[in-house]
């Protein structure tokens, strides 16, 4: 199960409102765009009753985004108005044209007239309405301008208008280029075009404050939700640098730059940006002392906390711990319980890296609930569930807990956590070996409409939970032999999470695992061996395990055994029970391959006990299969058949195709072996049913393209037909066997002895 959570404790600015900082005051500035809006408003007032109801409504709906949105070009504004009311658009344009092509006094007159709309007994605009506030803001801002600023505003307005005009009359301009002066200018431009181009791209026009804010928030949310849609790291950094060049006080840009550096795993610049951000934030925090926020002390705590997060992200756990201690100390000194809760959850994450402890986490969940931090609380619950699932706690309780936290999520519409919860359920079902349940959960998440989509319009599909679910889906498909589908899913993953992104490692691991399985099935051990290195790089334990499997397949028993013993000790130490059982199974297999069935038995029993304890059902049934096989070889096929009944059901319901085939093959073998003591009539019946089972096994093996197993089944079937005296069928099987046998090299283990 991938650790869904760790990454979520990041991005405090974006989720959960840990750090809300508005670096910019509310001060408004008059810009040409805003003047155009003012003109629109005054025209609206003037038009008054002439407007139809429908037009009026459309305009009103347009106004709010215009007032709050970033500055835009005049042509776009005009288009927007035209869509609502073409008549009004025309009059706005004319008013602007008159102002821009007139004199400075026209603009001054315009502002003088603006304040009239408040006066009178029946004012057009209410003073405290949205529009009224905007008007008053603008009038105030205009009155504050100095003489030269007024003039500058006017020239800016002229440029704003002319730019629009130019666009309209671009063709005419080109015609006029014939006069010599223009030509000269043109030439100069061309000469410069070469070296200046880069520079111009770099500063593609400074952004206005609102635009910059909009740009930042947009990129930040994209980074969080759908990284592929955000700007590429390099170009985003360029934009940010550009932004910072023009306004070094723009603190949020530093934070975004920190997030951006995290994307490319650049520890140096991310630290730099993070600290810079908080240095800047502290300044503004001091200013906002008046609104009861106890000044910059707050941002200090979060600064330390964020630093801890950063170090944790880069795997510097010691440093992270030191930073966290600092954050905790400062938070304690200032009695900030909310911050302390964040620290506590982080402490858990750090402790988790060193040793398992859920005491902290339980504590954190309780306290978070107490302080009304649903996000942290349910994140804690999820971590707890994950941890408990590994520790083998009762499954029903875990599912209950998840259900309860789900209630919490839906109540607070924490869509992110809903996704995680589903992803976690998928993973837990997989852990328990209920592939159908896992499949169902995975499909649920994928086909669910995210809450966020309703709110913002950003499809939230780039999070870790989606990666986890898709990876599981790919593996489930591969297990069922739908390799094309699996590779399709992986291709999709590759597109959605490009290789350098944060969650790319997940699909890389799954991709290699699937390839490994295929190579093993085909008997291409050298290919599998070459994949081991890649798997080890992503997950060392898994890598070692796979290495042992390859060694075992290549009949290098003693090496495999040594490796497995080491792995076993390690896994027992880190309490990775799932892997312990798998290693035990592997060891048992080594024993029976070396014909030491008696030694294999206690190992298998140990594995079985463990699997039962941790309710890892699928592993348990696999162990039972192994056990049955050992019993078969030890000459007690009846007993083997008995316990097989226990395992065959879950295997057929949830198992991989290969396992299903093996199980059926084993059942057939046991049937044949136990038939030896039956009466002839009964014996024939038993053999018939064994043949049927073998047929089933054959289809399963054919699905995953396991030629070796197929060959064994055919051989066995031929022998059975021979015993029954059905020559035609026997010959057919024998022929098929012969074909396969010629294709494949004979392997060392006697045919009948192999179970897998």
């Amino acid at each position: 199960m991938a650790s869904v959570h760790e990454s979520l404790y990041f991005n405090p600015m974006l989720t959960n409102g840990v750090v809300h900082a508005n670096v910019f005051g509310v001060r408004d500035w008059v810009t040409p765009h805003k003047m155009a809006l003012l003109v629109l408003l005054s025209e609206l007032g003037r038009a008054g009753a002439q407007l139809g109801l429908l037009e009026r409504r459309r305009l009103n709906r347009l106004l709010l985004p215009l007032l709050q949105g970033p500055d835009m070009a005049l042509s776009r504004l005009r288009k927007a108005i035209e869509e609502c009311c073409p008549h009004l658009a025309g009059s706005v344009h004319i008013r602007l044209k008159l102002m821009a092509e007139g004199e400075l006094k026209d603009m001054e007159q315009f502002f003088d007239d603006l304040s009239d709309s408040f006066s009178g007994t029946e004012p057009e605009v209410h003073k405290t309405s949205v529009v009224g506030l905007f008007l008053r803001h603008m009038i105030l801002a205009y009155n504050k301008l100095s003489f030269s600023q007024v003039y500058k505003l006017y020239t800016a307005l002229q440029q704003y208008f002319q730019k629009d005009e130019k666009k309209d009359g671009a063709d005419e301009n080109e015609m006029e280029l014939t006069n010599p002066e223009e030509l000269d200018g043109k030439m100069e431009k061309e000469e410069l075009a070469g070296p200046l181009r880069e520079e111009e791209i770099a500063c593609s026009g400074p952004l206005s404050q609102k635009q910059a804010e909009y740009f930042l928030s947009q990129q930040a949310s994209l980074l969080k939700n759908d990284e592929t849609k955000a700007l590429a790291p390099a170009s985003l950094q360029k934009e940010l640098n550009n932004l910072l060049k023009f306004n070094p006080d723009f603190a949020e840009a530093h934070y975004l730059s920190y997030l951006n550096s995290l994307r490319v795993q650049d520890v140096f610049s991310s630290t730099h940006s993070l600290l810079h951000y908080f240095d800047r934030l502290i300044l503004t925090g001091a200013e906002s002392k008046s609104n009861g926020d106890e000044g910059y002390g707050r941002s200090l705590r979060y600064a330390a906390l964020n630093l801890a997060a950063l170090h944790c992200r880069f795997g510097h756990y010691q440093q992270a711990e030191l930073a966290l201690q600092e954050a905790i100390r400062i938070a304690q000194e200032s009695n900030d319980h909310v911050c302390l809760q964040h620290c506590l959850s982080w402490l858990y994450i750090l402790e988790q890296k060193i040793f398992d402890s859920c005491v902290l986490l339980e504590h954190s969940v309780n306290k978070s609930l107490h302080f009304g931090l649903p996000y942290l609380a349910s994140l804690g619950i999820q971590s707890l569930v994950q941890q408990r699932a590994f520790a083998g706690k009762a499954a029903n309780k875990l599912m209950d807990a998840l259900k309860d936290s789900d209630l919490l999520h839906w109540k607070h519409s924490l869509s992110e956590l809903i996704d995680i919860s589903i992803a976690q359920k998928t993973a837990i079902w997989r852990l328990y070996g209920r592939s159908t349940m896992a499949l169902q959960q995975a499909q649920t998440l994928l086909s669910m409409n995210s809450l966020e989509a309703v709110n913002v319009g950003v499809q939230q599909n780039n999070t870790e939970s989606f990666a986890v679910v898709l990876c599981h889906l790919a593996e489930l498909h591969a297990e069922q032999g739908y390799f094309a589908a699996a590779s399709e899913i992986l291709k999709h993953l590759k597109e959605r999470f490009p290789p350098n992104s944060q969650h790319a490692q997940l699909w890389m691991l799954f991709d290699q695992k699937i390839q490994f399985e295929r190579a093993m099935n085909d008997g291409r051990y050298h290919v599998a061996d070459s994949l081991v290195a890649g798997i080890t790089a992503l997950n060392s334990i898994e890598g070692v395990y796979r290495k042992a499997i390859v060694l075992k397949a290549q009949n290098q028993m003693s090496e495999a055994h040594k490796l497995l013993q080491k792995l076993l000790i390690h896994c027992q130490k880190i309490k990775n029970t799932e892997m312990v059982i798998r290693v035990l199974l592997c060891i048992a297999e080594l024993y029976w391959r070396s014909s030491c069935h008696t030694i294999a038995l206690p190992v298998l029993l140990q594995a079985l006990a463990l699997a039962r304890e941790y309710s890892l059902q699928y592993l348990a049934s696999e162990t039972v299969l192994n056990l049955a096989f050992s019993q078969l070889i030890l000459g007690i096929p009846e007993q083997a058949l008995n316990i097989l009944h226990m395992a065959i059901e879950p295997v057929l319901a949830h198992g991989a195709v290969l396992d299903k085939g093996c199980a059926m093959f084993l059942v057939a073998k046991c049937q044949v072996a136990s038939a030896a003591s039956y009466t002839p009539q009964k014996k024939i019946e038993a053999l018939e049913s064994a043949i049927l089972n073998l047929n089933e096994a054959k289809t399963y093996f054919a699905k995953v393209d396991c030629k070796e197993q197929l060959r064994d089944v055919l051989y066995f079937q031929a022998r059975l037909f021979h015993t029954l005296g059905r020559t035609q069928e026997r010959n057919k099987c024998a022929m098929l066997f012969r074909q396969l046998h010629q294709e494949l090299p004979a392997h060392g283990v006697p045919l009948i002895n192999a179970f897998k």
Partner: protein
Amino acid sequence: MAAAAMVAAAGGGDFSDLREIKKQLLSVAERSRERGLQHSGKWAAELAFALEPLPLSELPPPPVLTEEDARDLDAYTLAKSYFDLKEYDRAAYFLQGCKSQKAYFLYMYSRYLSGEKKKDDETVDSLGPLEKGQVKNEALRELRVELSKKHKAQELDGFGLYLYGVVLRKLDLVKEAIDVFVEAAHVLPLHWGAWLELCNLITDKEMLKFLSLPDTWMKEFFLAHIYTELQLIEEALQKYQSLIDAGFSKSTYIISQIAVAYHNIRDIDKALSIFNELRKQDPYRIENMDTFSNLLYVRSMKPELSYLAHNLCEIDKYRVETCCVIGNYYSLRSQHEKAALYFQRALKLNPRYLGAWTLMGHEYMEMKNTSAAIQAYRHAIEVNKRDYRAWYGLGQTYEILKMPFYCLYYYRRAHQLRPNDSRMLVALGECYEKLNQLVEAKKCYWRAYAVGDVEKMALVKLAKLHEQLNESEQAAQCYIKYIQDIYSCGEVVEHLEVSTAFRYLAQYYFKCKLWDEASACAQKCCAFNDTREEGKALLRQILQLRSQGETSSTDVAAPFFLPASLSANNTPTRRVSPLNLSSVTP
């Protein structure tokens, strides 16, 4: 052309013909002045003044006027007077169409200056916070276009190239600018402005190595200057010494540069004496006096600083340096609000004067206004990323806010910039100590001692660390070194930790049963108030034990002996690489 002749004459990196050099200096001063390049002219004139006066016969002839010069003479004369009155647009208007080199340069230069002036004016009243940073010198692009055309046609003389370089630098085209400045230095090596611009653009020694510079005597001045900038003080001092030996001993420029260099390596006494000498020679000098005041501040020489402040205030109170000196003066008198006010004034006078930001940060720190301090330091870093004082100040601020881990980053930055400055190392060590990272702390203290500890505290701290870790032998070693250090300095200053050192050593020797040494140390202890009783008690014990076991104690071999002389000449001028403190040093 006159310029060509001069270039030929300027060749050769030797100073054998001082008369020739003087001639060149005089003529270039004149030519710079003609073009309105006041600072370069001043520099050349200052240097020329340091040399022996020339007899009438050897004075450089007045520059020969060409046909073109004659044609533009009227326009030039008019425009120059406008230019001197800072009416740049007017000057440019009358110079339009002039073809002679001199007039053309003045034309372009006044356009450039007009743009700069307008830019500065614009910043005051812009239309919003975001626009503030966007104010640009509008003239730069046009100038670049025209100058690049001329440059391609190779029609630019040394001054023209210089201006082209300045324009490129202002457009942030650093690489191109460096090339052009190097070219300018080749064409007209005597023009100090081009060299100075080059100094600002070169960021490290490697870059310097790869420049192909003209081999003239001016190069020596340039190298000395840039070594000072790059904190390669030893090399810089050597260069300046050789320049003095070559005959420039009277140059106030060189004297002030040497003083600054000593200031940079914190050789305060030497720097102070040189500055005093400089003040005697050039009593109305304002340049570099801010550095002088820093030194006076460090030594807490109140009367001297007060005198300097008043003196400078009389000369010109609206100079950045004056404001800075007054700020320092108030700071020394603990009137920090006033000090901050004066630093703010300095910044108003010149927003690019980065020292003031840092100093203002210090003042805010004194006023316990940490957020304002952080702001000031951040500004300083924005102006110059290599300002180690600002990084150090930021570290201190966070340390005061009790965030020892957080401030590590800032101290590390400062340490990287000044690897051989013990103060950062001690600060780092203290932080690590607070974080209980004793190994790192030990490393820091040891390195601080090794690079030459200014405050002499590193060893004591190291010793205490060893004490904490029960490494008594190392602790004793450190205390011994510390005591030797203190006494070899010959300072009689009461060092609080000396008594601690003696007390520890007495105990240590006592434990090792080295009675002689122990009693010697215990006696020393008696000289201090806080350890007197302990010392006496120990002496009594020693006496007792001695009388008991006279024989046994003699044959105990000393675990170590006092090192005869420790390397006291730990000059911090040596360049060392930054300490690698842990695997992660972002």
